[in-house]
């Protein structure tokens, strides 16, 4: 009987249990403790989770870390237990979640001063949910941690209950994501009815030598819908801008940085381990590439037309999510590696930009571009940090975003989509350009004041989450600096690309995952043990494309700032303007619209996946 609980198997459950216990303690005692003590306990807890997940990650270099909870190890390949499987990508996401939570809590030290609400306990519960979701290998367990993440996230979004916008945003977020989760649960029930198993390895093995029938397709589509609602793929993306516009900035850091990528991770993990052998690769690839392109374009278009800085960043997240979906959706190890690198770089850059937005709110009481025009000129060093953040979002080398974009583009072209570099350059240029436009107007006072648009969500009237600040304290500088610096260091460290390729290869190796979880075989990861030099981190074409997108972003920003000065008559036709405003009208803030789009998306997914299987070709 092979030793299935190898060394370190006790680490993953601990990474989930420690934040839950600490959250319960804080929820009970935070009223009786002084605020600094609450902060210290919360930060110490998340630092311990950083340590735990870092140990798990270092252990995954040798093979996946498999834990059968409660000791219910498989007998002759059959088990009733719940399995936690940590492979390099899952462990890296778990580590990213813990690091972002730590930095968000450090930022909240002075930034968040709310009279009511268990902010720290909710953040720790959110961390527990994310850790469980990233490290589990059981489908129903994924649903449970998905709901735990969700409930904590809805409460954190609506934590400023005095503010009109917050409660509406939290309600939209809550209803749409919960409905997505229930749809996923129907899918889990259908999978169980077909295979009699809930663990991903067992499901994959049960489905391995089968033909796809309507039940399997329905189950797959419903589970994907649930996780992709969290992952903000179009047309499930409407909740994201509302939630980000109203949640406190440290919470937005967690949403954009790791919660949304976790949705994508869950979807593709389920595909590779459970459904990878039964559904035809070409159909799934086409589905995700098309939907990824649509998501990227929706995000980029909405991003450039926003004036609320936090909503603008939210739409840029949607644009980048589209790029992640394209990179993951080409269904190769290289694409997955590129997506992983891009997610990591994007997390650092987007998080630092959200924290800059938080500083703007604390200092000036607004996140509106028009309202803040020229008011940030006295912000000192913060101005240049914001410029660096905007350029990093536009994938300027050597930031981590640039590395991820270069690897993803190469993987997309290699998989047979030669237009990939054009899409990636366009989306990163547009989103980076929108951020640089805001930075130029707010921090440097460039260009004329933009005109009013009465139908748009402004950034005025947003309530501060803490005291008004005169100078930016150290507890806010440190996270901003570490996040942006981390994104920069990631692109400079040697061996990052190779580590990502190994992680990507392990992620797409569904067969190895199944075998190792069920039989305890210590398999070498594919591609491990090569002695030749790994792939170069940067290659010339990737660097040139990255520089191109950064330059285009600066151009887009300049054009947007000085548009009316340079061009006397508007050359954008009336038809295009009406089209854009009609498109923005769809993002109405109305919960009924969002649910209708969710159902439409479910049908679209079903058609994409199921229709090619119906025709007898």
């Amino acid at each position, binding site marked *: 009987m092979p030793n299935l609980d190898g060394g370190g198997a006790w680490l993953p459950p601990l990474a989930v249990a420690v934040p839950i216990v600490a959250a319960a303690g804080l929820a009970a005692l935070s009223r009786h403790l002084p605020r600094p003590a609450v902060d210290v306990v919360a930060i110490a807890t998340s630092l311990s989770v950083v340590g735990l997940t870092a140990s798990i990650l270092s252990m995954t270099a040798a093979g996946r870390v498999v834990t059968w909870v409660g000791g219910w190890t498989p007998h002759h390949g059959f088990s009733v237990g719940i399995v936690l499987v940590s492979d390099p990508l899952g462990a890296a996401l778990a580590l990213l979640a813990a690091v972002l939570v730590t930095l968000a809590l450090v930022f909240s030290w002075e930034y968040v001063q709310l009279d009511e609400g268990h902010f720290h306990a909710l953040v720790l519960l959110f961390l527990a949910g994310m850790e469980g979701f990233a490290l589990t290998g059981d489908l*129903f367990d994924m649903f*449970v941690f998905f*709901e735990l993440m*969700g*409930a904590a996230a*809805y*409460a954190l979004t*609506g934590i400023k*209950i*005095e*503010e*009109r*916008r917050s*409660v*509406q*945003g*939290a*309600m*939209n977020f*809550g*209803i749409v994501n*919960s*409905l997505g989760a*229930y*749809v996923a*649960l*129907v899918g*889990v*029930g*259908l999978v*169980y*009815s077909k295979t009699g198993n*809930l663990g991903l390895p067992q499901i994959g093995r049960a489905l391995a030598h089968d033909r796809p029938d309507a039940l399997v397709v329905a189950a797959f589509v419903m589970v994907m819908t649930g996780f992709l609602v969290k992952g903000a793929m179009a047309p499930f993306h409407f909740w994201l*801008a*509302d939630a980000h*516009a*109203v949640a406190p900035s440290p919470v937005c850091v967690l949403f954009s940085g790791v919660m949304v990528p976790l949705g994508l991770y869950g979807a593709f993990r389920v595909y590779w381990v459970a459904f990878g052998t039964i559904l035809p690769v070409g159909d799934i690839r086409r589905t995700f590439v098309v939907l990824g392109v649509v998501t990227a374009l929706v995000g980029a278009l909405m991003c450039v*037309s*926003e004036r609320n800085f936090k909503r603008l960043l939210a739409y840029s997240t949607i644009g980048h999510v589209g790029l992640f979906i394209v990179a993951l959706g080409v269904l190769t190890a290289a694409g997955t590696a590129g997506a992983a690198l891009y997610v990591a770089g994007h997390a650092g850059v987007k998080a630092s930009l959200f924290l800059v937005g938080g500083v703007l709110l604390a200092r000036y009481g607004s996140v509106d571009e028009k309202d803040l025009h020229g008011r940030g000129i006295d912000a000192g060093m913060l101005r240049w940090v914001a410029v660096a953040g905007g350029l990093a979002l536009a994938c300027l080398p050597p930031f981590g975003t640039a590395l991820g974009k270069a690897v993803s583009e190469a993987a997309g072209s290699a998989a047979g989509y030669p237009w990939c570099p054009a899409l990636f350059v366009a989306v990163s240029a547009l989103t980076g350009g929108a951020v640089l436009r805001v930075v130029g107007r707010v921090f440097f006072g460039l260009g004329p004041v933009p005109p009013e*648009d009465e*139908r*748009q*969500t402004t950034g005025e009237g947003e309530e501060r989450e803490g005291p008004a600040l005169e100078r930016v304290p150290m507890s806010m500088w440190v996270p901003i600096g570490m996040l942006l610096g981390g994104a920069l260091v990631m692109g400079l460290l040697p061996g990052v690309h190779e580590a990502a390729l190994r992680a990507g290869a392990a992620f797409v190796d569904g067969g190895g995952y199944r075998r190792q979880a069920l039989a305890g075989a210590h398999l070498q990861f594919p591609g491990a043990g090569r002695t030749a030099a790994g792939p170069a981190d940067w290659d010339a074409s990737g660097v040139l494309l990255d520089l191109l997108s950064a330059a285009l972003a600066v151009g887009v920003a300049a054009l947007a700032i000085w548009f009316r000065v340079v061009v006397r008559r508007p050359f954008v036709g009336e038809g295009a303007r009406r089209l854009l405003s009609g498109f*923005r*009208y769809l*993002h*109405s*803030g*109305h*919960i*009924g*619209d969002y*649910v*209708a789009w*969710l*159902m439409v998306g479910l049908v679209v997914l079903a058609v994409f996946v199921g229709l090619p299987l119906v025709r007898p070709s």
Partner: protein
Amino acid sequence: MNVYPYLVGGWLLLVGALGIARSRNLIHAVLCLSIAQSGTYVLLVAVGFQHNASPPVFGEPPSPVNVHVVDPVVQAMTLTDIVVSATVTALLLSLAVQIHKRHGTLDPDELRSLQG
């Protein structure tokens, strides 16, 4: 195999989603979400059901090993689902109360603070 429970489960999910899409009152919308979830309960329990089978309770040993029982795993999933529903519904209803306090209305058509 009796198709009827599956149809009921699917119908509840769809009618719940339709109710949210056409809702004029947020409390009605949250309860429609609850109805959609009830559809998942019916579906899960139906998956585990078997005709002429007994509840999954085993008595004192020696009880016969091959007794025909319904599937307890889906029943455990349903109980977990009910707990999740209780939490989420309570949270969303408290948000609805706050929305009424801040906006003065519960009609989604009247909530205009997040547009564009």
